[in-house]
């Protein structure tokens, strides 16, 4: 059975990462506590950002050097031609990467073009002013998304397959996912979009729900992936909702925006009202998806910050009372985050369906 093997592999990866990651990251006992605090702070902000390699954990060795354990990922840059190289060349920003005739350096999570010595120049507000090439690297986040995409494809393809094999009855893991698929159809899509039109939005709703949910869950594993807490990702997702909403908008949808009062008033009476109403309605088109992207981003970001801070507290307290307490808190927050992971996916899907419902609405004309 390949699925049993996969499960075992997944289990091993997760458990080893779980037991090794937090301890190796924070177990720098000999340093004074002030340094530990800044290290934890730095680690958290570093974790919240995307990175160029899939780091599992890092530690400081006897020579006071940071050793990173992880998988290097491809860096893809567009700098007068495509530049592809392994992220191991960047050495986590400690040295300059030479690719052909170009030199690149990693600084605060971004790749800049430098000279052979790796000189970085800053402006007065401490922003790097070196040229930054267009960066299309397969980062940790992209790799996680690819992983989730393959997982979803495998999972739901096999679910679809069981229907044909098993005469319309799901088998195995499909028994768990089928009710969720049905829930999205019956409780999210149908009530919000309507019985007639929900079909064409189902694929998006299902994909976005499972995509966000799985990425949220991966974010809770000690692999330390923070994809849905990244504004670029939530922006991309909300943009799709925005595009689908407005491209499938019916005449009634646009009429509702540009003529919200309809035939209930004489046209000359509507003019002063519409000076205010139409800009509000137009703004609403953008605010709706914007709220989606901010909500998901902020929730996941905040969850990660709280959880990691609580884990960090264990190493700051280092006492019989404080550490177990913060462990308990971190455990409780983890459970809540597990719920939040599902809830945020649900809210995103639900609100997307609601907006699609506005776009698809067709009511009899007054």
């Amino acid at each position: 059975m390949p699925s049993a093997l996969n499960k075992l592999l997944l289990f091993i990866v997760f458990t080893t990462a779980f037991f090794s990651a937090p301890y190796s990251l924070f177990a720098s006992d000999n340093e004074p506590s002030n340094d530990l605090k800044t290290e934890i702070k730095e680690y958290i902000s570093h974790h919240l950002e995307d990175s160029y390699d899939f780091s599992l954990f890092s530690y400081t060795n006897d020579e006071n050097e940071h050793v990173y354990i992880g998988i290097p990922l491809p860096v893809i840059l567009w700098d007068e031609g495509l530049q592809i190289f392994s992220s191991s060349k960047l050495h986590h920003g400690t040295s300059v990467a030479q690719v052909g005739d170009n030199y690149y350096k990693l600084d605060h999570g971004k790749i800049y073009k430098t000279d052979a010595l790796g000189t970085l120049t800053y402006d007065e507000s401490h922003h790097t002013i070196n040229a930054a090439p267009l960066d299309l690297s397969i980062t940790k986040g992209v790799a996680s998304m690819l992983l989730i995409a393959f997982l979803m494809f495998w999972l739901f393809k096999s679910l679809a397959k069981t229907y044909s094999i098993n005469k319309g009855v799901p088998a195995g893991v499909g028994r768990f996912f089928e009710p969720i698929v049905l829930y999205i159809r019956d409780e999210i899509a149908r009530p919000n979009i309507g019985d007639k039109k929900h079909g064409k939005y189902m694929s998006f709703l299902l994909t976005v729900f499972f995509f966000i949910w799985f990425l949220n869950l991966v974010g809770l594993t000690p692999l330390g992936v923070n994809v849905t807490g990244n504004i670029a990702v939530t922006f991309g997702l909300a943009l799709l909702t925005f595009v689908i909403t407005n491209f499938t908008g019916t005449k009634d949808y646009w009429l509702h925006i540009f003529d919200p009062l309809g035939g209930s008033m004489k046209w000359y009476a509507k003019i002063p009202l519409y000076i205010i109403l139409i800009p509000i309605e137009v703004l609403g088109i953008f605010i709706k998806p914007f709220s989606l992207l901010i909500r998901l981003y902020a929730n996941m970001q905040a969850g990660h910050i709280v959880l990691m801070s609580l884990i960090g507290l264990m190493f700051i307290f280092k006492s019989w009372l404080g550490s177990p307490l913060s462990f308990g808190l971190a455990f409780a927050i983890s459970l809540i985050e597990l719920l939040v992971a599902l809830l945020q996916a649900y809210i995103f899907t639900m609100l997307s369906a609601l907006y699609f419902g506005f776009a698809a609405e067709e009511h009899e004309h007054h």
Partner: protein
Amino acid sequence: MEKLISEFSVGLFFWQTVIFIGLLFILRKYAWGPILTAVNDRETSIKDALASAVAARKEMENLQSDNQRILKEARAEKEALLKEAQSTRAQLISAAKEEAQAEAQKILSQAQEAIQNEKRAAISELREQVGSIAMDIAEKVLKKELENNDKQVQLINQLLQDSDLK
């Protein structure tokens, strides 16, 4: 806000969009389409099965009531038949009885008549025989009486004497 914009990674946005749209179309073709079709098919088949079960039950009830009715009718018919048969039997018996009585009466009267006739015949025959016997006897007696002349004369005399002409 400024930090958010400066942190915005174009690469991540690009890949996210590419991966998501790719995933969306692939899943639509290979997963969501078949899954939703299968689920819909199953739902309609369940609905149909339920409806047909209800219809079957209704039919069954109809059939049952039909059966009951037929049974009742059959029972009534049987009873009627039985009753009829009984009355027919009684009728037959009484008719037969009457007929037999009449016949017996008839035979009896015929027999009586025959007896009467026979009796009459026998009586008349007896009368004739007795008459002839009496004539024979009288003849014989007369013959014997009148064997000799003396006697004949004596008798004539006596008869004449008896007859006494006046």
